[in-house]
């Protein structure tokens, strides 16, 4: 079953762990993309490639520029400079809808549910090349009815997987935060893209469901789809990604397979912090608490009688934790 995974791992096997390392069969190649907001350089990516048929994770601290990077690639914002090719086709300056049609579909971190459409209609909208989306053919239902049924069926299957089937006839605007995330991802999958770019798909999704969805994402890879996703949940990154790209302050600072990346000093420093490989053990927890308590006590002594929870300097503290 997991032959694609094997293929992907194989492709990554001998690669150097350098930022911007060339991949054997890149689907997306990015060069010198820069985006500035006033004085702030949000994105400054020199070179990066995404391997076809792999699951690649894009991680990095908050504000690293991941979402902005997605926005540039998918035509939702105009880069100050830079070029990128998708399947060998240059994509800079291409409007967003053409990017999606070319097979590169993204989701939004802050979800964009189509509020006053039902969940099912949201899903159906994702399907491409619908005959009934042409004005004249729309007028004659027999032209598009069959296709519509097929689309509906596909949509319903996905909804079941994403545990949204009970909500299928409710307005998307009435979904909970997590359900919106799920819908956002499911809808993108309706497009049937070659490359799907997920922006924090699992933030706010229940862990049990996340787990079952990861299986689905792996299936996608088996079907030949390429997945590029942003995520802060390291368990998930570790579980499904074949390759990890790390961004910080707009630039790609490291690349590599998940296991290596998560022990990279710089990545730990900038991003992971103390608890990078496993959830805190009981003892660690205790230690952490004690530390906090000590700090609190100190604070109380200092400022006699004021109640506020003191701000402990978290960074050195967590660094210490790691040493233990």
């Amino acid at each position, binding site marked *: 079953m997991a032959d694609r995974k094997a293929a992907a791992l194989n492709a990554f096997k001998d690669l150097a762990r350098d930022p911007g390392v060339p991949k054997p069969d890149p689907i997306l190649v990015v060069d010198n993309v820069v985006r500035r907001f006033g004085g702030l350089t949000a994105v400054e990516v020199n070179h990066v490639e995404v391997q076809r048929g792999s699951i690649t994770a894009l991680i990095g601290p908050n504000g690293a520029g991941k979402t902005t990077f997605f926005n540039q690639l998918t035509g939702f914002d105009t880069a100050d400079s830079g070029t990128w090719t998708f399947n060998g086709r240059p994509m800079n300056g291409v409007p967003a809808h053409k990017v999606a049609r070319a097979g590169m579909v993204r989701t939004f971190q802050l979800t964009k549910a189509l509020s006053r459409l039902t969940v099912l209609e949201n899903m159906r909208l994702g399907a491409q090349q619908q005959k009934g989306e042409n004005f004249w053919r729309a007028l004659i239902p027999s032209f598009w009815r069959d296709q519509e049924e097929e689309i509906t069926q596909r949509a319903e299957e996905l909804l079941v997987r994403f545990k949204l089937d009970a909500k299928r006839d409710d307005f998307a605007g009435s979904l*909970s935060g997590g359900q919106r995330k*799920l819908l956002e991802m499911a809808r993108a999958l309706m497009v049937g893209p070659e490359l799907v770019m997920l922006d924090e798909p699992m933030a*706010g999704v229940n*862990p049990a469901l996340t787990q079952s969805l990861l299986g689905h994402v792996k299936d996608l890879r088996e079907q030949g789809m390429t997945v590029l996703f942003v995520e802060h949940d390291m368990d998930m990154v570790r579980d499904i990604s074949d390759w990890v790209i790390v961004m910080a302050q707009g630039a790609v600072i490291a690349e590599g397979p998940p296991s290596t990346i998560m022990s990279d000093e710089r990545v730990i420093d900038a991003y*992971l912090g103390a608890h990078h490989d496993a959830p805190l053990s009981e003892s660690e927890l205790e230690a952490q608490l004690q530390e906090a308590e000590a*700090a609190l006590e100190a604070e109380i002594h200092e400022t006699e009688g004021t109640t506020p929870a003191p701000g*402990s300097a978290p960074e050195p503290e967590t660094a210490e934790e790691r040493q233990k």
Partner: protein
Amino acid sequence: MSADEAPVQSKAAVTDRSAHLEGAKDAVLRCDELIAGYLPGVNILNGSDLYVKEGELIGIIGPNGAGKSTLLKAMFGLVTIRSGTVLLKGEDITNMKAHSLVARGVGYVPQTNNVFPSLTIEENLEMGAFQVPGKFKERFEFVAELFPALKERRKQRAGSLSGGERQMVAMARALMTEPSVLLLDEPSAGLSPKLQDLVFIQAQQINKAGVTVIMVEQNARRCLQICHRGYVLDQGRNAYTGTGRQLANDPKVIELYLGTLAKA
């Protein structure tokens, strides 16, 4: 005060009303048989009970769409309660307006839309300290130390912030007043692992300092690790309750709500 002082239950139990009544006697905040919803005729909360004692840290977990956020909103007067009561320190605050609750020392971080996009970060925080403008400077220094990124960008409009940065602003905003009861709706979502750590530690610390905290989390395992007691909400009802540890180790809870991914 530690987790052990919380009322002991032998195991994570399917909600037991008598246990609730027993436990809730001297609670700071308690909800009884809340029924609430958005659309006429559709109830999202179907009689959920919850109590939290002085100085407790409570976690609420559950599947997506279970009604966790709705529960918090209902307590905070943002969703109309159709029946049931909410008591804060013995006072009936059912359907009381949010700003009056803030005056009574309740703070709240919403799950979504939790910043003022057209206000700068600094102004967002100023709004957080709306009822105690005198304390703004002091508290600002405090949150700026927690999230240094915010201080650098104090003049940036929140609408242009990244998802995680917004989350920081949201959290910081709630910390501007010094609430005695804090309701957090997925405070760690969208934050980098490092900052997630920070949030959990901070929650614990605040709790240590005497603040009662109710926290909804999808980072469920992590949440159960630090909380004294937890509730599992499903379809608007309490499915399981117990201490954090009990819940985290209950096979049913693991299977249905926690997953096994993080354990690996």
